[in-house]
């Protein structure tokens, strides 16, 4: 039996919004394509207003694309079967203010077709998981933004969906809440669920994703796997050492491209990972202490910033972006 590897496929989706009174129509998505594989956490990264939320709404069948198509578990967007296996957390969620949290979850659960015998327990579990047990019988009207976000997550995972679509799941949360969401996401991944989430916050992406799709001005400009990012990150490393005299550094200048010192500590930036061994050995042999070895960080940020600066619709660049989707695109892009 063929394994159902592809969970979500978005294929050349275009969307134009009708202009408001007198305004010209605006094409927001210019042919967005990507896919999510079973069991992965896929990030959807892009600046504000680039069409992330619009893409997500089309995936869910809340909007129709002008052209292109979306398949979820091989079904069309908006199909009942597809929807029953899908959990969704909207951006800035707003729920029924007149309901208590418990009533709200019951309502959602019954719409998802959860057995009424199981529903009560399931709701309790979700409230515990999201840390909202104490607010179970409070009306949603009085919920803070962070609490609403938690309630949103609870309803999204209530029916144990195979595909989770989260639009800006970390917005409005305190650090504890962020950690909770991250833990839940990683736990679901362990259970083989697929998660697709949008964000414009890089550390979240780096910490969680297997892969990231970068979108800009309604076009996917790049898709990078974290392995790839990690490999690129490995190209340089920072060594923090103590007791490092000028003389010691003198012996390894060939391997180092930057040196800085703060207090008694010296920060040595090693050009390539291959040199690390030599540098550390040299430091030890000459009586310096190595305190920390830190791989280059924020490489996704570097990629992101490079991808979003410059006009993707410039003819030359566009072809480049297409090739950049493949691994090794970094070099292709650097010239």
């Amino acid at each position: 039996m063929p394994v159902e590897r592809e969970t979500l496929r978005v294929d050349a989706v275009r969307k134009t919004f009708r202009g408001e009174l007198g305004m010209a129509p605006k094409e927001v998505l210019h042919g967005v394509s990507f896919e999510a594989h079973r069991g992965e956490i896929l990030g959807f990264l892009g600046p504000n207003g680039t069409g992330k939320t619009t893409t997500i709404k089309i995936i869910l069948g809340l909007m129709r694309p002008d052209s292109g198509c979306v398949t979820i578990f091989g079904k069309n967007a908006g199909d009942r079967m597809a929807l029953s296996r899908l959990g969704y957390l909207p951006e800035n969620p707003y729920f029924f203010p007149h309901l208590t949290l418990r009533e709200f979850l019951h309502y959602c659960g019954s719409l998802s077709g959860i057995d009424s015998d199981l529903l009560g327990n399931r709701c309790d579990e979700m409230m515990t998981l999201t840390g909202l047990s104490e607010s179970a019988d409070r009306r949603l009207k009085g919920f803070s933004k962070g609490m609403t976000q938690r309630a949103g997550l609870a309803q999204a995972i209530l029916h144990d969906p195979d595909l989770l679509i989260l639009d800006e799941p970390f917005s409005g949360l305190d650090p504890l809440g962020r950690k909770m969401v991250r833990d839940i996401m990683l736990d679901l991944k362990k259970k083989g669920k697929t998660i697709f989430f949008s964000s414009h916050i890089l550390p979240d992406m780096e910490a969680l994703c297997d892969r990231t799709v970068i979108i800009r001005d309604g076009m996917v400009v790049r898709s990078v796997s974290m392995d790839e990012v990690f490999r690129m990150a490995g190209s340089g490393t920072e060594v923090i050492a103590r007791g490092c005299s000028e003389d010691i550094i003198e012996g390894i200048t060939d391997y180092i491209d930057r040196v800085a010192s703060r207090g008694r500590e010296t920060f040595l930036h090693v050009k390539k990972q291959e040199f690390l061994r030599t540098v550390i050995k040299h430091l030890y042999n000459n009586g310096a202490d190595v305190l920390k070895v830190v791989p280059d960080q924020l490489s996704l940020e570097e990629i992101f910033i490079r991808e979003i600066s410059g006009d993707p619709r410039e003819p030359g660049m566009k072809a480049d972006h297409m090739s950049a989707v493949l691994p090794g695109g970094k070099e292709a892009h650097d010239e």
Partner: protein
Amino acid sequence: MNKISSIAVNTFRESVREKLLYIVILYGGILLLSTFILSPLSVGAAGGKIITDVGLAGISLLGVLTAIMVGSTLVHKEIEKKAVFMVMTRPVSRHEYLIGKFSGMVMALGLLMLIMTAVMAVMIFIGRGVPGAPVFLASYLSLLEMMVMSSIVIFFSTFTTPILTSFFSICIFVAGNLSGDLRAFAQKFGGAFVGYFMEVFYYLLPNLKVFNLRNEAVHDLRFSGSDIVLATIYAAIYCGAILYFAFLVFRRRDFS
């Protein structure tokens, strides 16, 4: 079916928790006030008639006004505030959503009218004795009228704003009460075109006159049972047709 009833129950809850209670209180207040003011003038049977008259008119009018008030915001607010995403991203069809909304609204307004009828019956009992069947039947027909108006309100709110929905619905309510008269008037005085136009209008608009049994109830007149059965069938068909049109609009709608 299960999903429709979930949506209906939620809608019922929303309506009841938000505003409906005040309408009942308003109704009780008006009824009490009017009897206090009017009863010294006309004691006995006449007093009872006034209560019946004011009471039934109040039930009909408040039923329809509440339908317009609650209904015009019901669907629109849910779409505007994106709460509808919670329903539409689950395995629920759009027709189930509309039928659920309609049913919940009718449940809430039905409860409202039931309470108002009970209040009225008690007052009639105090005023002139046990209220007759026409009183309850008149109230039942008002319920049907309210259902027809609810379906119209839901139809408009699938594509326009609460203010326009209210406006159109009130226009239809007024025209629906007058359509028979207007048609007769056009047949008598209008040219061929006006006559034809009115004819189309007459069949398109709900004929709300068929839901009016107030005169019979007040004066204890005879009425035909088949009229009531026909009014029931008419209401069912009319609601069904309007909800179907609402579905045709709603099915194509983008939620943004």
